[in-house]
């Protein structure tokens, strides 16, 4: 059987390596294009990422700073303790609304003390400087220590959302002109007070620890409850979805006989991934709250619903990763007398780890950012009280970070938009913390063979 290149194979002259022949040129051009597409794809993704992150950061950075006003408040006994017996039970009958009036007087006094004169400044402008949260703050202090009544005490109180916005550049003189909730005079007054050092903008720890606040006091709203709620839910998801998902994948990919039933399970799982998340909410409401009697708005229910939702999203990548491990490695293990189970857990699983971790990263990211299913199980709610510590806290009402974002973007006061972006930043940091370990592990387990 002669195999000379003369007949069938076109004769190729020994060409120089340094010059590319036409075909090579064309193929190299294709190669370049291909590579360029890759670079472009990554560039597009990175640009999108940068743009999105930039919008979030510029919009949300302000949430981490807050303006406070330092004022001496004369705690008028006539108003705060009408009975005069300093009995906290009696004093508790005085509502925050009355404290509000005491504070108004204090602000007016401060303005007067500094001798600030601004044309057209109204009493409403002065009173509006501080947040409604301030009266609750003062009331709590007074009830905790009734002896303060009658004294003049220094308070560091939150300023109103518009004032705070002014120092962060969100509110301008022009917008204040049209804004019925503030006025240029009020802003000028705020500026004067700031110049005198009474009003300062500083880092806002309260944003990270406070609970949500009502529409009237955006400046007091924080993500404390939401962080706890998300944390609890993620604990549940992590503890259930990841092991169950991996276990199910191992069974289906490595052990299940290839028959109708496993086909049905397989199709089922891919289909579950396509079920809109709100439907999992419907399921959760029916199964966990109505049937199992778990409490509403509780992270345990949220966690369980998210677990069910995340499971298929972990199973699919995990199965793909298991499938990608070459059979020769399984053979090698079986050949030295390892059981199937041992070969899977000792060899296949470690090699599939990067793919599994990617599934976990993406699945958890989705679970962390999901609101729709929580809508039906009562977690999209206004919650002021922090849940307890573990494990009891799993059953207390709690919010979640995406829920907080969702809620705040619907509020009418524009100050909440900033908070929402701030909450998104917190959420992303939360996600990053959750993922660093996974990303590090993934890099560690990555190898070629």
């Amino acid at each position, binding site marked *: 059987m002669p195999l000379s290149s003369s007949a069938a194979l076109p004769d190729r002259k020994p060409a120089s390596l340094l010059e590319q022949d036409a075909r090579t040129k064309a193929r190299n051009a294709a190669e370049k294009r291909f590579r360029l597409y890759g670079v472009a794809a990554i560039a597009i993704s990175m640009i999108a990422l940068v743009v999105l992150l930039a919008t979030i950061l510029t919009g949300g950075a302000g949430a981490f700073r807050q303006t406070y006003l330092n004022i001496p408040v004369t705690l008028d006994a006539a108003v705060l303790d009408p009975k005069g017996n300093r009995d906290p039970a009696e004093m508790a009958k005085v509502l925050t609304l009355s404290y509000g009036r005491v504070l108004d007087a204090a602000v007016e006094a401060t303005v007067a003390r500094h001798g600030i004169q601004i044309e057209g400044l109204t009493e409403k402008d002065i009173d509006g400087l501080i947040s409604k949260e301030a009266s609750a703050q003062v009331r709590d202090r007074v009830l905790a220590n009734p002896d303060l009544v009658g004294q003049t005490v220094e308070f560091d109180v939150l300023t109103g959302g518009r004032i705070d916005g002014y120092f962060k550049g969100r509110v301008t003189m022009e917008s204040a002109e049209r804004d019925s909730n503030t006025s240029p005079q009020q802003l000028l007054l705020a500026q004067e007070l700031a110049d005198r050092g009474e009003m300062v903008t500083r880092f806002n720890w309260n944003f990270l620890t406070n609970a949500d606040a009502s529409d009237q006091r955006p400046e007091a709203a924080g993500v404390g409850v939401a962080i706890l709620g998300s944390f609890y839910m993620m604990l549940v998801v992590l503890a259930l979805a990841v092991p169950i998902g991996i276990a199910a994948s191992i069974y289906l990919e490595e052990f299940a006989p*290839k028959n109708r039933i496993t086909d049905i399970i397989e199709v089922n799982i891919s289909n579950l991934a396509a079920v809109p998340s709100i439907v999992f909410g419907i399921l959760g409401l029916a199964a966990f709250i109505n049937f199992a009697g778990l409490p509403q708005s509780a992270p345990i229910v949220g966690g369980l619903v998210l677990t069910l939702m995340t499971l298929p999203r972990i199973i699919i990548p995990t199965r793909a990763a298991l499938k990608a491990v070459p059979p020769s490695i399984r053979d090698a293990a079986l050949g*030295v007398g390892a059981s199937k189970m041992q070969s899977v857990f000792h060899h296949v699983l470690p090699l599939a780890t990067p793919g599994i971790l990617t599934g976990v990263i993406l699945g958890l990211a989705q679970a962390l950012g999901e609101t729709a299913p929580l809508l039906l199980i009562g977690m999209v709610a206004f919650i002021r009280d922090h849940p307890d510590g573990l494990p009891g806290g799993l059953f207390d009402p709690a919010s979640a970070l995406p829920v907080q974002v969702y809620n705040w973007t619907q509020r009418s006061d524009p100050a909440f938009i900033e908070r929402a972006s701030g909450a998104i930043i917190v959420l992303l940091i939360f996600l990053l913390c959750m993922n660093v370990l996974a990303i590090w592990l993934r890099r560690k387990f990555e190898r070629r063979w």
Partner: protein
Amino acid sequence: MYDMNRPEKAVSQTETKISARKVQVYYGDKHALKDVDVDILDKTVTAFIGPSGCGKSTFLRCINRMNDTIPIARVEGQILLDNEDVYDRRVDPVQLRAKVGMVFQKPNPFPKSIYDNVAYGPRIHGLARNRAELDGIVEKALRGAALWNEVKDRLSEPGTGLSGGQQQRLCIARAVATSPEVLLMDEPCSALDPIATAQVEELIEELRSQFSVVIVTHSMQQAARVSQKTAFFHLGNLVEYGDTDDIFTRPRDSRTEAYISGRIG
């Protein structure tokens, strides 16, 4: 130079370790192994020879049921190990494979360190009580496979970073480290130089004193050197099986003769 120093063919033992009866293997529709009947003796080296694609590996994989992992493979017939049918429902293939070790045709080290590659078997079978014992087993196995000198300084490097022949020896060491009762070796010396080959052959000879070894080889010289029994496969049939001396000097089947004299392949 190309000496064929054969050990005395002391086919002293009589016990049958493995006996195959009417073994058929199908890959899908393809009938890869037809009616194979063979008795493999204990404490003996048996060589499987035959042209490429004749079914040697297939038969080897039948013995320790590695064919179970190929979905399209179907095995019929009986294979008895110590008079127990390995395809019996009650037989645990894992236990079987612990008894019947295997070196695959294509070297397939785990993507782990060299040490872990060899230590894997002893670990799962609990052959070592402590680290020192394990170290001992690993060293012994690597020495046996003539690899120790080359890798003793790089035991923690990945086994996949070795040269082809080194990988092959690593796989031999891995199989030997579990000290199986039967060792199936599919062309264990194909990528080895003559000296390494000689060392592995020495190892085989040594193993024979305790175990039964089956070796697939394309080298007639090697078969003649190491084995006491030889089986010749052709197109899925076991054509001839007998004492190695007889097969190489007085083949009964014409196909055997043609093969060993280099006429059919």
